[in-house]
């Protein structure tokens, strides 16, 4: 019969129309911004810099190695390296960035900076409501705006952050064990010498999560 297919189709739309009142499967939209869907754990928007502890400047993990600056495909990271060094999480003295700018109007959220960073210093944020009317200053994030605490990292990417923490703790333990071994060796050497000097076993300064 001519029109049968159309009638069948109409029945289908009617089913979907009424179904959307009862079934979540048929109505997947929400009324943003009053209502929000939860962001996925892996979601990524723009990068941020992780710091440990309470002081953002002291706890910044970034060591200004500039690898991410070089690898970023659209070249939207700008880093100035410090002249002096400050201790990192494991107590090793490291450079730090005196300037770390990301132009998020250019950034394409590709996550390559995160992948290449050897120091777990840069991670992806999930904050997406960043609209501003100032194209240059408003979208250029400096290192203060980029710095977010490790706790914040834990709230947005819990699984990943825990993995990173355990990896860093492992490395730190390794470094400490090495330092201890070195100190012991030094002490043993000193003991062998006639006038034993006091052991130089100072705990590593700074860092710590």
């Amino acid at each position, binding site marked *: 019969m001519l029109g049968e297919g159309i009638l069948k189709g109409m029945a289908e739309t009617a089913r979907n129309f009424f179904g959307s009142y009862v079934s979540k499967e048929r109505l997947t939209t929400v009324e943003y911004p009053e209502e929000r869907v939860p962001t996925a754990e892996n979601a990524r928007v723009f990068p941020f810099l992780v710091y440990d502890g309470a002081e953002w400047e002291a706890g910044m993990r970034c060591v200004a190695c500039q690898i991410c*600056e*070089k690898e970023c495909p659209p*070249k*939207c*990271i*700008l880093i100035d390296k410090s002249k002096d060094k400050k201790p990192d999480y494991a107590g090793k003295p490291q450079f730090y960035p005196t300037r770390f*700018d*990301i*132009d998020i109007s*250019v950034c394409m959220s590709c996550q390559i900076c995160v992948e290449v960073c050897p120091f777990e210093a840069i991670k992806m944020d999930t904050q997406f409501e960043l609209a501003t009317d100032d194209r*240059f200053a408003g979208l*250029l994030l400096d290192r203060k705006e980029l710095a977010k605490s490790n706790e914040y990292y834990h709230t947005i990417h819990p699984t990943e952050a825990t993995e990173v923490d355990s990896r860093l703790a492992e490395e730190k333990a390794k470094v400490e064990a090495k330092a201890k071994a070195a100190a012991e060796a030094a002490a043993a050497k000193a003991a062998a010498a006639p006038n034993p000097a006091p052991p130089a076993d100072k705990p590593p300064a700074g860092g710590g999560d």
Partner: protein
Amino acid sequence: MKSVEEIKAAIESAVPGAAVEVVPNPGPAAQHSLRIAPEHAIDIAQFLRDDPELALDFLSNVTGVDWPDKEIAEKVKVTREVKKMVDGPDGKVEQTVQETVDETRKRVEPGCLEVVFHLYSIAKTHGPLVIRMRTKNRSDQVELPSVTPIWRSAEFQEREVFDLYGIVFTGHPDLRRILMWDEFKDYPMRKDYVEPDDFEYEPTPHDEVLKRAQKHKGREQQTGIRDQERVAE
């Protein structure tokens, strides 16, 4: 599918006088290719498509490649005559002696433009056969025969190669620019293409962006035109 050597032999027997050369691919992909001379290209293409055993009826991909002039520095030994003062019986005497020295000479290997075709067979489900063709140079002798009459799929792709590389395909039915606008002059995919100075301020300049910003700044100072405060620190 036959190996490239067998295909070369088949082409040579089917198209008398055709110059075919095997270009080995040193990489792990080992997709070796055949370079053909442009003079017999149409006959060879026809043969490749219509030969019942090869039946390469599907031209998948047409690529332009730019090989710019290469400057090769090589060391050569040259012998030349040098005048020297030699101790003679009555004081110093000027004498000519032969001397061999190393000299670095620069030789310019002329560049060319190349088209690469990737052929498959749908009837026989084999492939790819890679065919390449070279122009004589990169400036005035850039004509190559078009294979659009043989494989229609080359129609837009050859236009693209013409647009971005400047290879002129003779016999193409409708050779116009395809991606760039008609008034555009240069060929953007060539290695020596110079980008126009359409500098746009970026707050995070480093590497190439910084170089471009500095060049732009220099030009601004020359012309005295400053647009906004687009100056890199």
